[in-house]
């Protein structure tokens, strides 16, 4: 679990945030993340994030559902227990369609949500560092990671020039953990001390 140094800039409006994101990239600072209270369209492109492949995963889960349903029903009616139900054929494809469709949707939906949670590291009780309590309310928070090469003051001045309102420095656990959110949390403080030592 790595504790890192960050410079955090607070923006009031996404219209100011956008050009700032572009400037950070041209300036070559290490952009840790941008936190927004709602999905800002195009911000992922401005940050240079890769397009998500969640759709592909969904497609794969879907066809898994289709094959599971079709092969299972065929196996039951033709191999495991071939029972004559009202003289109907053992492989009645049209009658299999409803369940096949439902299982396709079910597999795709459940699989995608689970993949989404896995990729975003979301789970009941997971804790992550909140850089600003209003990042889920009305503020747009840009977080720049400090490396050996970057100067904190320089980054702060840069953010101020780009239109950030409240600029501060934070030491934070960049990953995720289970536990409480409080700053007094023992796990949390211990990590900071070891980082300072």
């Amino acid at each position, binding site marked *: 679990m790595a504790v890192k140094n960050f410079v955090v800039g607070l923006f009031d409006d996404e219209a100011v945030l956008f050009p700032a994101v572009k400037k950070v990239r041209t300036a070559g600072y290490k952009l840790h993340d941008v936190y927004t209270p709602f999905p800002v369209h195009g911000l992922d492109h401005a*940050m240079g994030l890769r397009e998500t492949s969640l759709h592909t995963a969904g497609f794969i889960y879907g066809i898994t559902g289709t094959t599971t349903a079709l092969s299972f029903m065929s196996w039951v009616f033709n191999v495991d227990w071939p029972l004559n139900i009202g003289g109907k054929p053992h492989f009645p494809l049209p009658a299999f369609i409803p369940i096949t*469709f439902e299982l396709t949707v079910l597999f795709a939906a459940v699989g995608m949500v689970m993949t989404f949670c896995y990729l975003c590291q979301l789970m009941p009780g997971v804790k992550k560092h909140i850089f600003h309590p209003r990042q889920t309310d*009305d503020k747009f928070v840009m977080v720049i990671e400090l490396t050996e090469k970057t100067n904190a003051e320089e980054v702060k001045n840069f953010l101020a020039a780009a239109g950030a309102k409240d600029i501060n420095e934070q030491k934070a656990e960049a990953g995720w953990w289970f536990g409480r959110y409080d700053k007094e949390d023992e796990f949390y403080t211990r990590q900071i001390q070891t980082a300072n030592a």
Partner: protein
Amino acid sequence: MHLKYESTLREPLVDGVKDYHQVTEDIISPIEGKPGKLWYVGFFISLALLGFGAFSVFWQIYFGVGVWNLNKTIGWGWDITNFVWWVGIGHAGTLISAILLLFRQGWRTGVNRAAEAMTIFAVMCAGQFPIIHMGRVWMAFFILPYPNTRGPVWVNFNSPLLWDVFAISTYFTVSLLFWYSGLLPDFATIRDRAKTKLRKLLYGVAAFGWTGSTKHWQRHEALSLVLAGLSTPLVLSVHTIVSFDFATSVIPGWHTTIFPPYFVAGAIFSGFAMVQTLLIITRKILHLEEYITLGHMEAMNKVIVLTGSVVGCAYLTELFMAWYGANPYEFDTFFKYRAAGPLGWSYWIMMTCNVITPQVFWFRKMRRNVMVTFVMSIIVNIGMWFERFVIICTSLYRDYLPSSWSYYRPSWPEVGFYMGTFGLFFTCFFLFAKYFPVIAVAEIKSILKTSGQNYKEKMEVYEEESAEKFAHDVAHAH
């Protein structure tokens, strides 16, 4: 940035001058405060109904299905009527959240959260009816295909009743996932605002550790869009499959190919009526008139008048086919036992409530009148309940064998069970309105700039200039 130009003629989706923080305040502060008196009154009435329902169900399970007034002729009565009705109610929620998302309808953001919650609670109510109807409910697991210890006796995959099992359970699961994934960001907002430790803990667990990271939003959007794409055919399939329960049979009045589209339209019709009933109460009690505007209600009333007319068209088609098809049984069912006959009154209630009264929504004044909408929403719900009753009971009570013809009226456990599901539905909805954000906060924020009142005011500057100029200025704002 995704700021699109909208016509000045289009009314704002959020009334009042709001900024992002004000939106959060308006929607989340009811959760943080104490509920009002009305909430307690409503909640305890619902709990009482739920208790009565539980007692009725206990009575039925203890003494057997015989306590219901079903007989050899009428094997499906109130139970399946209520099942189909409740499933239908659920459809508006998925329609609003999925189909309208795909069609980029901005007005869905104000109502989708409550509508999706309604879907989930309605499907919970619906599922109980076929299960309790089985009689020996402890054997309900027989409907699931699993390798059992009594030899490999499998379920019949050719049976529409089994398709129902898959359709309803899939529908419930997918709706729940769609609803909850949309709730994550809003739970995070409540968590980060929380003043008490308990609230922080509970909403912290519920928020799954959401932070609002751009990458997460990107995946979240992709997820919502694909789930919407999956739910869209699902909405249509679920009620189609429910209609197969009837359409694949040989009973006159059931055995018709028009059933799937007719059932789906009816489901959306009754679902939107229930959304109206709930939202008119919710916006009043939680003071959300600025978010659930008259514009929203008008849009939903348009859907009601459309689907109501589709349903009316289907009724007339059925009558036409009963005459034109020259099948004497079919003709008698429709013209002698439905439109006339001992249960004929239910047919005329259905016709009045579903076909005639919704036509008031052709008038804009009526569509934008809260009282008219509220009364209409209840009338439509009654009408749609009678539609299912008419389909089931007036087809069964005069069967092929005149010696078995009978009449049907429900017994108290049947009525009590139905009341009980109302209790469950409203208990869940009251808890939802108290502890969950009833409006999708993050989604409202994302349309605030393009469709809020303040945006419209900013646009007044451009009124004399061209739309192109405005669009250009917005596109080059940064």
